[in-house]
């Protein structure tokens, strides 16, 4: 058997576009999710039980639905409720919903595990409510979650392959269309796999940088 890498080379643009789409969809939805996660984590940590319960239900609903099924729901089921989305919007919304649920939970867990002393010092120095959250709690939480967010991003990149089911031209879709056109499944999927590995390697590098920052903050907690 000879590898038909010439075909892959000829179709490099498809792979490049697929990779590009995977990257920007995941990057944008990760940023949006992080932002929404920050908004969600406040009610998740509310002192009021009812507020907590509502937020918790919302987060768990997002977390406990398979990504593929959520994609079907957003792209195929919403139109029957009169809401048709183009596949790009549907893809982005699916990624954001799914990922926000995880982000909120990740942020909550990091918040709960902060040593209480820094927050207490915040209170003692006149911080309360949203200012306490914004100036004292949130920065520590964001630094602490860096590595976990990186791992979640790797998860998201892999899950985004399911978007090929709605013919969204991300990396897996590109690989699949090249292989089915030229009958080169091995070459095509191998190249896609290598590209995913490279992508995750890049994220992994950032994770390690983030881990160093998080370790610094942990040391600064003074225990």
């Amino acid at each position, binding site marked *: 058997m000879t590898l038909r890498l010439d075909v892959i080379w000829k179709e490099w643009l498809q792979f490049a576009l697929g990779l590009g789409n995977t990257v920007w969809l995941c990057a944008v939805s990760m940023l949006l999710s992080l932002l929404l996660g920050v908004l969600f984590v406040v009610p998740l940590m509310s002192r009021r039980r009812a507020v907590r319960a509502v937020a918790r239900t919302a987060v768990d609903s997002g977390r406990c639905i398979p990504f593929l099924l959520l994609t079907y729901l957003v792209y195929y089921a919403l139109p029957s409720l009169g809401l048709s989305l183009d596949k790009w919007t549907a893809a982005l919304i699916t990624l954001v919903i799914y990922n926000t649920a995880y982000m909120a939970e990740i942020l909550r867990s990091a918040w709960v595990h902060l*040593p209480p*002393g*820094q927050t*207490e*010092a*915040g*209170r*003692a*120095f*006149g*911080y*309360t*409510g949203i*200012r306490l959250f914004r*100036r*004292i709690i949130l*920065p*520590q939480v964001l*630094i602490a979650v860096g590595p976990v967010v990186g791992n979640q991003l790797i998860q998201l990149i892999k899950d985004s392959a399911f978007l090929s089911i709605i013919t969204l031209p991300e990396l897996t879709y590109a690989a699949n269309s090249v292989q089915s056109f030229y009958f080169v499944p091995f070459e095509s999927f191998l190249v896609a796999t290598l590209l995913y590995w490279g992508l995750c390697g890049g994220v992994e590098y950032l994770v390690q940088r983030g881990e160093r920052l998080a370790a*610094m*903050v*942990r*040391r*600064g*907690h*003074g*225990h």
Partner: protein
Amino acid sequence: MATDPVPAVELRGLVKQFGGHEVLVSIDLAVMPGETVCIVGPSGSGKSTLLRCINWLERPDRGSVFLHGVRVGYRRSDGGNVLMSDPELAMLRTRVGMVFQHFNLWPHMTALGNVIESPIHVLGRPRGEAVAEGERLLEKVGLADKRDVYPAFLSGGQMQRVAIARALAMRPEVLLFDEATSALDPELVGEVLAVMKDLAREGRTMIVVTHEMKFAREAASRVVFLDNGRIVEIAPAEVFFEKPASERARQFLERYR
């Protein structure tokens, strides 16, 4: 004209319980401006709780706290006393500086960042003014060169001195220290105690929970001996250490000989 001086901090009939257990039984204490009062007592006697009740980090169950005659936690309104809102309480807390056993510096800010944080963002002081004062305070605690260093890269003693500068930056009416040297390696205790002694000598009003009897003897105007949530003894430092009135205090002091 001689008027009755108003205590910087006054506690009247303070009671605090945790789950039905009375941790502070009924505390009466007046600390005059310029005084350094050391609170000593066995572990679990309620020293930390007492400090935390002063700025209402812990809300007392009964009794009252006054800062220069202003009641903490309640506001007078036409009907009587109403509970302060969170922002009101927060503003009142800025009048009390607090130094913690584990420093509790904010690790995402540099030494100077920690010192100027609350003056800028809570008190609303202009940034330039806060920075100038912050630099002066870091110099005062001997850490001018650590201005841009993050807490992670400071020793325990340095962290605690930054924490003291942070408290001073609020220009507080009273400083509370909760075992400020207990978490430090023995060789780092001295540098922090030296700063605290300077502050006492300057005539700052300080309430200091400590196990450092030598410090209490040298720096305190009065010593409060707390046992089982009660003030068993209040006496000038030399009296307390030379001739403690109670048997409990004698036993307690034995352990430090």
